């Protein structure tokens, strides 16, 4: 009954115009929220039987974790090393993170990935011998945090045709208080802001064959990554370099990497040989995130709605959309994909969605390169990030940043940093007269 009512509500709420279908960014998993709750709303299409699990998953996502020992057994297992206390700390209101404005600010929704040259297990990164594969700034009592990453900005102005000046900033990363020795000359570092977390189930359901067909057409490259649950190499879909194969593994990886919480998928604590206090720390019963909690967390992510587009039929939005395609942006930021089947949620299948991604890696040029390969992704390749919800990012959190290191504070800044395979598209945008550029940005704001 509830589903019928919600489905009826969806039809009533959807704009009854020519652009109605295009507004349904997530197909049946679209929600008509355009305020601060745009990324936290459950999709009406989630089956009734999963609503309770969705709510449990939401609690797991939002609840700060506790260092052992503690009384609330459901959430014990923070650390020994960690970045933040909860998932939501890095994904405010399920949206994207941001970079600190000044060197004095901590990285609240951002972290620094670390590794050394060479291939690690199964072809992935080779973790730093002392620090692992990311800098954990915090430790539970008795375990020193690994140190602090500091970001400073080098700014310059770019003047566009028509005289508009855009201030761009490039991050410079340094470290203070490194507790386990110097990082060393060969350390590879890559600052990353947290991405938004809605719509992941739909992206997981896009058929691999469709993604490979796009690759053959636009020159993008699929990443091939390790699927820890199934013990084989598969297509990568999630993460800034598409280094995670599934929503479940992305979640379990973040729980361990960011919170220090073990799960049935990743059972070992996040301590290296160089961290005796970490290795000796009191730990909670294992795994700290139970199988039930992990599945509930997955259900939460699969069930989150994708916000509908606004103003689809506005003439300037339409013009901007045409300019987006003409500039070549849509070659990688694919407007429309159709989902196939999803292994754990049938309802995600058969949806026409508008994520504006191809889930493929593309060379983005020297300015954005981190020089840190990850499986097949080179140091200058990044996965095309989805653009759905783009116009709501700063409504959900006014600090939200764009690009992997949060350097861009607006879609225009992000476009201007595009290089490599996207150089021509960015150049086309640069050449646009001011009015056309405004129309393009209005279109992006409608996503």
């Amino acid at each position: 009954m509830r589903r019928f009512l919600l489905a009826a509500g969806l039809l009533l709420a959807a704009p009854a115009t020519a652009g109605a279908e295009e507004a349904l960014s997530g197909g049946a998993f679209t929600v008509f929220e355009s305020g601060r709750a745009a990324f936290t709303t459950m999709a009406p299409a989630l089956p009734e039987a999963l609503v309770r699990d969705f709510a449990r998953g939401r609690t797991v996502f939002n609840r700060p974790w506790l260092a052992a020992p503690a009384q609330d057994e459901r959430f014990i297992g923070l650390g020994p090393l960690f970045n933040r206390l909860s998932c939501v700390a890095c994904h405010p209101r399920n949206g994207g993170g941001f970079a600190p404005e000044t060197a004095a600010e901590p990285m609240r929704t951002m972290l620094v990935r670390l590794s050394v040259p060479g291939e690690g297990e199964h072809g992935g990164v080779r973790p730093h011998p002392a620090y692992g594969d990311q800098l954990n700034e915090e430790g539970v009592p008795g375990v020193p945090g690994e140190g602090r990453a500091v970001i400073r900005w080098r700014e310059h102005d770019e003047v566009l045709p028509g005289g508009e000046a855009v201030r761009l900033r490039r991050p410079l990363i340094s470290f203070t208080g490194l507790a386990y020795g110097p990082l060393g000359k060969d350390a590879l570092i890559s600052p990353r802001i947290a991405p938004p977390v809605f719509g992941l189930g739909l992206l997981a359901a896009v058929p691999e064959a469709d993604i490979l067909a796009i690759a053959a057409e636009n020159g993008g490259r699929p990443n091939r990554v390790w699927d820890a649950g199934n013990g084989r190499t598969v297509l990568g879909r999630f993460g800034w370099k598409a280094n995670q194969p599934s929503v479940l593994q992305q979640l379990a990886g973040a729980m361990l990497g960011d919170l220090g919480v073990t799960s049935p998928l990743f059972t070992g604590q996040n301590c290296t040989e160089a961290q005796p206090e970490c290795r000796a720390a009191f730990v909670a019963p294992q795994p700290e995130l139970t199988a039930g909690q992990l599945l509930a967390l997955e259900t939460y992510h699969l069930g989150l709605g994708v916000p509908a587009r606004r103003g689809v039929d506005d003439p300037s939005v339409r013009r901007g959309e045409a300019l987006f395609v003409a500039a070549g942006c849509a070659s990688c930021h694919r407007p429309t994909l159709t989902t196939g089947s999803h292994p754990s949620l049938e309802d995600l299948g058969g949806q026409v969605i508008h994520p504006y991604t191809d889930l493929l890696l593309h060379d983005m040029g020297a300015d954005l390169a981190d020089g840190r390969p990850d499986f097949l992704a080179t140091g200058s390749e990044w996965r095309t990030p989805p653009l759905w919800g783009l116009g709501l990012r700063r409504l959900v959190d006014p600090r939200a940043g764009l690009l992997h290191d949060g350097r861009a504070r607006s879609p225009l800044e992000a476009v201007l940093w595009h290089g490599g395979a996207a150089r021509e598209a960015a150049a086309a945008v640069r050449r646009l007269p001011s009015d056309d550029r405004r129309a393009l940005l209005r279109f992006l704001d409608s996503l």
Partner: protein
Amino acid sequence: MKALLRATLALALGGLAPWGAAQAADTVRVFTSYPQEMMDRYEQAFTKANPDIKLDFQWGHGGDAMATLRQPDQGGVDVLWSPALKAFPALAKGGAFRPLGDTAKGIATKVGGMPLTDGKGTYAAFELAGYGFAVRPDYLRGHGLPVPRDWSDLAKPAYAGHVILPVPSSTGFAPPMIEVILQHHGWDKGWALLAEIAANAELLDSGGGVAMVNELAEGTKGIGMIIDFFVRSAKADGKPVTFVYPEITAYVPAHVAITAQAPHAKAAETFVRFVLSDEGQALLMTPEVMRLPVRPSTYAKAPADFPRPFEGKAAAFVFDPAKGTARQFAMTALFDAFITSRHAQLRDGFAAIRKAEAAGDKARAEAARRLLTGVPATEAEIGAPALNATLEDMESEGAKAVKARWTQAVGATTAQALAALAK
């Protein structure tokens, strides 16, 4: 690119800060149970105002706070900052805090006649939250229902099927709210009222205030019994809900204190001064927080429709939070036995009672009502410390035996009532 990478990597060698000290000189470790979004709001503002102090949060509920602060070194915690109603007076009694001195100057010590602290100056109120109704106005209009004005309104037949009642054993904010009804109406009448409200309501046993507000936003129910900030925050997010304070309610305080052995006492004092300052109090009114300040002067900045608990006539009812916290384990267990265990029968029973009343069979209705609303334990029994100690661990044999006894007694009277109504 290579030049940039070399420059970046050069900064990574050795762990030095080439531009000078970006690292905080002092630290303050704050134990809290506030939600992440609220912690972040305060962390950001505090760090901006005090860039030389690193703010570390340790998260846990009241029970963990008490266990941590009772360790010999108080777990290295400097400040307890939490809506843990029971923890502050209990810890203060054991000497866990140091005097606040003038740090809390200008902070209210009473609301509506209710003291906000023990008056001994080792902990201060930080914010207030009030109990009442989450309401979806268009839902009520659509069903021809007036906005309820008092808890007792929710027991009226017209509200049947439209209300959400949280189960206090599984919803953190609910025990004091149930206590407001029990303390205002008295023990027997209070439980009778709760039974009849429950008959009209869906019971919420998971997901807390967020789940309740979401249910209202989805339009499945029109009224929820709740604490205010969940609703005001959701309203700020654009959800079609609003909050209504009933005629009789209570505002419960959250507190802040500095531990007796604070390793960073100076930074701790700076943090406490900040959260109690006009700036720190004004942050309570932001959409992601939506609590009520305890510095009365801060309300000068509040929007016209913001609640003002320190204004208006003296309250006709003064809530006693200590009474509630002392018997919380027994009260919540009794609620489970008296209401949760027979919820469907309560609904059927009251539907039949109302039918009998409408048919003029008042004697039968009254007899059944007495059976359905008779609570199986007295107020004195529920207030006994030994019983509360037994019921603190609901999995213990002692707790199971007590609950089984109550459930059996309630089951018997319920069966009698239903049988009488079926005749």
